[in-house]
């Protein structure tokens, strides 16, 4: 018998029953909830007269709509306010654990789950949000679900799923200095495309992934969905166990010992079979910058904007042309010559303490360039913010001319007041550069926190490896 992949193990441990056509009912251990994709689910429960199956598995937080300034004044947009108030009312009605907007534990749902130890190895973790793949960094099976599924999990603690295929993305060797988890995952997406992982659960492995901190692994798994894969994951090792230890919702005492013993099995067997294997050479990865309107439209900072005339597939060529037009870029422009208007350091991809440290290290002793209208740092949670302030990172950013904000999704998707104006160009540490994502007509370039900081202080994209040397 061949061995099992990590995904096979996680799947098998959670199957409750299987239909003849292979559709399985799988059990959910952790359900994270936010204000945008839950109101219709709670409403559905109420209309059907149903109760949540296990409220102790649910953790709720408002993050998408919350303002990042003047929290004491509440939410001024009445439509956003209603949505956040609806969440407040629902969690009270159904008895769900909740971190309200002004709680220090509040933050982006994918930052606070791991931070609280609510995300544990071996769990199934779901949330009405596609970036739930983030939690796979812990050797968990984590994926985003729609609102009907949110209701289904609330009512039954289960989900109907078909098993995905197995893909291994192995990043071999070590990345060079100045190259981060974000660059690794952008390079992966550039390689396999935004639909490359569709139908697969991706396991990220190889020396470069093993060498990453939990923050870095979360960044990589976060963007699995940008490669089309609903779930991304990394095997459990000492790094994982060290990170989880002592967190609020993590087990303690005897239970901890028992759990750790089980978690050590959460890796693919040596003879496990993957349906697809992709290998990347870590030493060849340079800092990445996206140039278009899909995360697969990405090049090294040392490169140029590609030319649609060189694309062979006509659908692809027309997509590139449309992207260049939207982005206001000419083919063959060197990436380092692209000037920016705004800088956003934040989002569930890159708003953890390590991200803020990396950005601050570049910013320290420098100033935001004159042509940059706004540079903002939005920590992923109240606790990340607190930690950063203890380390004095807020001062580094403020002295350079950055704004230092309250935690939330902010300009990652611009549901609150933080957004790009039409035509504005942004160096952003978020995960999606879709048309209008950061504000209608806004132009997003995806980069790492260090690269966003480098762009902020020079006013254009800059190879952070050169900047560090100067």
């Amino acid at each position, binding site marked *: 018998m061949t061995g099992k992949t990590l995904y096979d193990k996680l799947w098998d*441990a959670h199957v*409750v*029953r299987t239909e*003849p*056509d*292979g*559709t399985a*009912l799988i*059990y959910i251990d952790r359900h994270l909830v936010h204000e*945008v*994709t839950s*109101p*219709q689910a709670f409403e559905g429960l109420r209309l*059907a007269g*149903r109760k949540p*199956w296990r409220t102790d598995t649910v953790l709720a937080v408002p993050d*998408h709509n919350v303002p990042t300034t003047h929290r004491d004044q509440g939410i001024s947009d009445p*439509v*956003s306010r*209603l*949505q956040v108030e*609806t969440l407040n009312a629902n969690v009270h009605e159904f008895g769900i654990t909740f971190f309200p907007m002004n709680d220090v534990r509040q933050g982006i749902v994918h930052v606070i789950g791991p931070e609280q130890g609510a995300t544990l190895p*071996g*769990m199934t973790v779901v949330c*009405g949000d*596609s970036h739930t793949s983030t939690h796979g960094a812990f050797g968990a099976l984590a994926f*985003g*679900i*729609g*609102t*009907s*599924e949110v209701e*289904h999990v609330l009512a*039954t*603690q*289960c989900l*109907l799923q*078909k098993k*995905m295929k197995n893909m291994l993305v192995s990043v071999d060797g070590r990345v060079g200095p100045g190259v981060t988890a974000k660059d690794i995952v952008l390079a992966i997406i550039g390689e396999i495309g*935004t*639909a490359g992982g*569709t139908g697969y659960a991706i396991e990220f492995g190889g020396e470069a992934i093993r060498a990453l901190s939990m923050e870095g692994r979360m960044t990589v798994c976060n963007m699995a969905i940008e490669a*089309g894969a*609903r779930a991304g994951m990394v095997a459990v090792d000492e790094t994982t166990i060290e990170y989880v230890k002592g967190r609020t919702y993590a*087990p303690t005492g005897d*239970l901890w010992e*028992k759990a750790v013993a*089980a978690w050590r099995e959460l890796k693919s067997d040596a003879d496990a079979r993957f349906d697809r294997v992709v290998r990347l050479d870590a030493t060849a990865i340079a800092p990445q910058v996206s140039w278009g309107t899909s995360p697969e439209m990405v090049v090294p900072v040392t490169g140029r904007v590609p030319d649609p005339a060189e694309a062979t597939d006509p*659908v*692809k060529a027309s*997509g590139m042309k449309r992207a260049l037009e939207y982005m206001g870029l000419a083919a063959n422009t060197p990436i380092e010559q692209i000037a920016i208007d705004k800088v956003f350091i934040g989002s569930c991809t890159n708003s953890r303490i390590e991200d803020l440290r990396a950005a601050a290290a570049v910013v320290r002793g420098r100033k935001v360039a004159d042509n940059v209208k706004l540079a903002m740092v939005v920590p992923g949670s109240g606790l990340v913010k607190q930690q950063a302030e203890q380390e004095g990172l807020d001062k580094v950013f403020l002295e350079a001319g950055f704004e230092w904000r309250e935690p939330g999704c902010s300009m990652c*998707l611009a*549901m609150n007041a933080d957004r790009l104006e039409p035509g504005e160009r942004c160096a952003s540490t978020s995960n*999606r550069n*879709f*048309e*209008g*994502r950061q504000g*209608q*007509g806004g132009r997003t370039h995806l980069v790492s926190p260090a690269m966003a900081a480098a762009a902020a202080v020079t006013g254009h994209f800059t190879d952070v490896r050169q900047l560090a040397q100067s």
Partner: protein
Amino acid sequence: MKPLSTVDGLVLPLDRANVDTDAIIPKQYLKSVKRTGFGPNLFDDWRYLEPGEPGMDHSKRKPNPDFVLNAPRYQGAEILLARKNFGCGSSREHAVWALTDYGIRVVIAPSFADIFFGNSFKNGLLPIVLDEAIVDRLFQEVEATPGYRLKVDLAAQTVTTPSGEAFHFEVGEFHKYCLLNGLDDIGLTLQHADEIRAYEQRRRAQAPWLFR
């Protein structure tokens, strides 16, 4: 959920690959706490000339005459013809609600993003995967033929062109059953409540830290 068995509908061709959920329904409309009313904002950024916000009277906004959805010949379309990786991006079910609220009942594409694909079935929207070459031909036929309609038969799993040519498509038995009967899958799952409880008991013994 409304059952779906056959659709004989006008076809709307959306000739772009990787159409993401942000494009299908922009984020400002996700602030709604309802499941309905998203139709006027389907493809909002492409569809209107000026930016839109929730609460506006969208019928008074200026439509973009170059966007295919606004072409008179495609009004009343029930079948959307799309390119590969349709519905990529976020998990927002609002994207499906916007399509169904507008009147779309079937989307045909060479491939779909996984979450969108699953969300569709929960809302009586049928996503059909056909070969890229077939989709390509359908695009040519739709664009060349005003009033072009397709017949979709879920029970038979076929898409039939006006000339009578039929293409077979795959659909999961369970999805098909739920869609044909308009079934609420929560009710179906709750029929297995005993099995869920039995699983919990087994699991509690193996992994007690998950039950505290």
